[in-house]
């Protein structure tokens, strides 16, 4: 029995070593995706948004999305309530306390190091030109792990279709203007094009950060001094500014810390499966042990009862 328990403990130790935890600090340095200044993104400013929903309407038009029928007091409106299989962009309103409210634009955040890309089995969701998180249905199996993984609950699924797709904002990369220079050559979000107040603007991350900085400097009394997305969840290419006294949490943006979602998770996974060494070693050990044990048993059986039939 004592031998058995010791071996069991050895087994535990092997498994434990295989899943050994990395120190969190070293995790981010090994990341594949980093913020590049010419990556493209958007900057949304809740203090400028007037809730006209031009972006919602235009997004539907630009992406060929059907109406989102919502029943309100018996009448039917095209009024999407949330991101869904038919809505890639929506304006919502948040009660931010003291009788005040704030508009909020929800769409894909285009993370620098996205969880959805990290979890996708076959690059259906992937980082494309300009850091856009793009979708390629050809290799999507519809497992919806991206929906589980996304810390913002952005990817949506077409629940009522026999041949469904994952639906999410791809920054209107299909509307890109190849002849243009700069950000427009990569993508051309319809929402930014129609916004009457530049509440949401499109550009390279460097440009957007510059705008955010300028706005903040011009009227520091007006803004929450934090720009969401600079490094939240490892950084997002869609960034948010809001009014002073408004918490981003109230706008539905979670507190994620500075490290990307996949950083630690992948580190654990990578340590375990580095060069596939641990599984290979384990297999060798298992095969050898089993083979030896069986040989022993056969020898014992030969001595005892004669050849097993």
């Amino acid at each position: 029995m004592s031998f058995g328990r010791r071996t069991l403990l050895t087994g535990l130790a092997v498994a434990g070593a295989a899943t050994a935890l990395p120190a969190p600090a070293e995790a981010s340095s090994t990341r594949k995706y980093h913020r590049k200044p010419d990556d493209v993104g958007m900057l949304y400013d809740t203090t400028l948004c007037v809730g006209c929903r031009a972006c919602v309407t235009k997004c539907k038009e630009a992406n060929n999305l059907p109406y989102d029928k919502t029943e309100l007091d018996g009448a039917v409106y095209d009024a999407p309530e949330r991101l869904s299989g038919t809505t890639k962009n929506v304006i919502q309103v948040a009660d931010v306390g003291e009788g005040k409210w704030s508009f909020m634009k929800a769409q894909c955040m285009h993370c620098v190091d996205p969880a959805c890309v990290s979890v996708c089995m076959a690059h259906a969701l992937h980082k494309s030109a300009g850091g856009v998180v793009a979708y390629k249905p050809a290799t999507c199996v519809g497992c919806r792990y991206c929906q589980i993984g996304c810390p913002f609950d952005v990817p949506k699924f077409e629940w009522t279709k026999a041949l469904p797709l994952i639906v999410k904002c791809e920054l209107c990369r299909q509307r890109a203007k190849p002849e243009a220079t700069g950000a427009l050559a990569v993508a051309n979000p319809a929402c930014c094009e129609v916004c009457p107040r530049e509440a949401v603007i499109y550009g390279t991350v460097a440009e957007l950060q510059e705008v955010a900085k300028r706005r903040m400097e011009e009227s520091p009394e007006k803004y929450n001094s934090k720009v969401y997305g600079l490094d939240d969840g490892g950084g997002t290419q869609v960034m948010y500014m809001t009014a002073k006294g408004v918490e981003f949490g109230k706008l539905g943006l979670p507190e994620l810390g500075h490290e990307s979602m996949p950083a630690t998770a992948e580190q654990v996974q990578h340590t375990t499966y580095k060069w596939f060494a641990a599984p290979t070693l384990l297999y060798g050990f298992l095969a050898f042990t089993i083979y030896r044990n069986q040989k022993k048993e056969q020898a014992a059986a030969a001595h005892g009862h004669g050849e097993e039939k």
Partner: protein
Amino acid sequence: MSAHEHVERPIGGPILTPGFYLLLGLIAVALVTVAVRLFLGLGAVTALNDGYPWGIWKPLNVVTFTGVAAGAYAVGLLTYVFNKGEYHPFVRSGVMAGAMGYTLAGTSVVVDLGRWWNLWVVMWPPVYQINSVLLEVAVCVTLYMAVLWVETVPAVLEQFTISEYPILRRIGMKYLPAMRKALPFIIALAILLPTMHQSSLGGLYMITPTKLHPFWHTYWIPLLFLMSCWTMGFGSVVLIEMITTWIWPRRTDVKLLSRLGKVAMWCLVAWTALRLGDLVVSGRLAKGFAMDRAGFYGFWFFLEIAVTLAAILIFSQKKLRENQGWLFGASCLVVFQGALYRFDTYLTGYMPARPGAVYFPSIWEITNSIGWAAIGIAVYVAMVKRFPLLSGVVVKKQPSAKRIAAAS
């Protein structure tokens, strides 16, 4: 220690008993839901929504079924790696249950996949995205499913060697020796693969630190799931052994089973130590109670711990674990504990980033899960009646078909 009979025999008797018809009925209902889902989409039969994209088909059909099916893995580990030959009688039955469990899990995933026709990506390495934990699970489970069925082949071939058909006899004679020779290497694979994917089934939730309640989210989750599948495996082997002994004319060594229970207990102790130790050391226990709806999450957490401790307590008492009733009850608790831990991780402790979403399985999801379980039971029953999978079968001179039918 009793001398254990290494010989497995078919149970025999008619397959189509009234109970079997009931199983077929349940299966038919499940197949109808599959058909509806195929043409009208997942939303037509499930209560899934964008807030809860994974419903009970994942934690029940996939993760719990494979947990139950881990009997093959757990007993195999004990028998072959730790060389506890005395557990050999449980291996074949366990492998059969495992093969079924994994097949059910695999097929259930296909039903749950939105774009199932793209499943070829799992078998096409050039498109692999190797950071995906789910890919590891998918590839591993697919391979393991195949391995488990290969492991059942010797039983089939053995039966062939004594078949009345010459052609089957020839096949049996020809391939059985080769099969036996290759078995150690197949078994090694059959132990490696579940080690990998059972841990990964928990590893799936490493990436959601903000969406899985602190009571459950940890980067130790792969190890916790791995250990939990051992206990579930031991528990399920005990249950299957006892149930088959109860309803069919066969004997099993209760003392041996109770020792299996003791192994399960030590696994549970280790699991509990890691689970609670990690929670306390990392401070997530306190964090969890400081969060909203602490009562709800606390209830499920304490239920999990209470069931675990109850099972440990029963198994630790020699008198109790050697009593068939207590052993059976404790094994039920162990399987329930594993299922609960899996459900808590996948559903109860899951917090969509946007509150406002609710999920409770639709009646079709429930009937589908029941139907899927029925498939497993039906195939298992049919297989053990026709092929030598169970040990200790009492051979009657002329077994009365009627009596067996009534018993099953």
